[in-house]
């Protein structure tokens, strides 16, 4: 299972903080972003950063493993 996490303004648009997505062999980050985009297009439009297991990832072709944690994040505004 892949765990998708949503924070702040993205969580507001998705209306949840967490979503479990069935893992299949050969799955890439693109597959997950596509799925989230189909379900919540308004949320994806404000996503500026994606992290896989707490590390920012820019390549959508990144291969995923079972139990990976994918975070969808808007621009940061701490401090």
């Amino acid at each position, binding site marked *: 299972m892949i765990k998708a*996490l949503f924070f702040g303004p993205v969580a507001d648009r998705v209306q949840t903080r967490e979503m479990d997505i069935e893992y299949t062999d050969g799955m890439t980050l693109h597959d997950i972003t596509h799925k989230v985009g189909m379900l919540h297009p308004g949320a994806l439009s404000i996503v500026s950063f994606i992290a896989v297991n*707490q590390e920012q990832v820019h390549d959508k072709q990144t291969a995923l493993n079972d139990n990976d944690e994918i975070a969808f*994040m808007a621009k*940061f505004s*701490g401090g």
Partner: protein
Amino acid sequence: MTDPVRIQQEDFSQDAEIAALKASSKRMGGIATFLGCARDFSEGRDVSQISFEAYGSMALAEMRKLREEAISKFDLLDARIVHRVTTVQAGDNIVFIAAGAAHRAAAFDACRWMIDELKQRVPIWKKEVTPEGESWVTQHP
């Protein structure tokens, strides 16, 4: 001794943070600090509260990296970063950064660099509560 990098709900003591920084080395000749606090006005609106949300595990890891990088880049003797993640009122403390170096120039430069990098790199979001409703802050300079 508290951890030099923390995310916490409760307020922090600047005196305690500076004392901990000073305790790390007697070669420290300059300490620069930054205190970020909550304003009651933003983008032309009154702000009654600010609430923070973080991707805790990633935010803490990124803050630790940031401190290590600052120590190495500016030849610091020590540095501390504390960020509150809770709901604060106007005037309340939000973030504290301290940089200790042999001389003042490195301390000033490192302190400025750390808060600027924190705003760009650390997954924390703030939501302002105003009389017109709540809104997520995109980014302040």
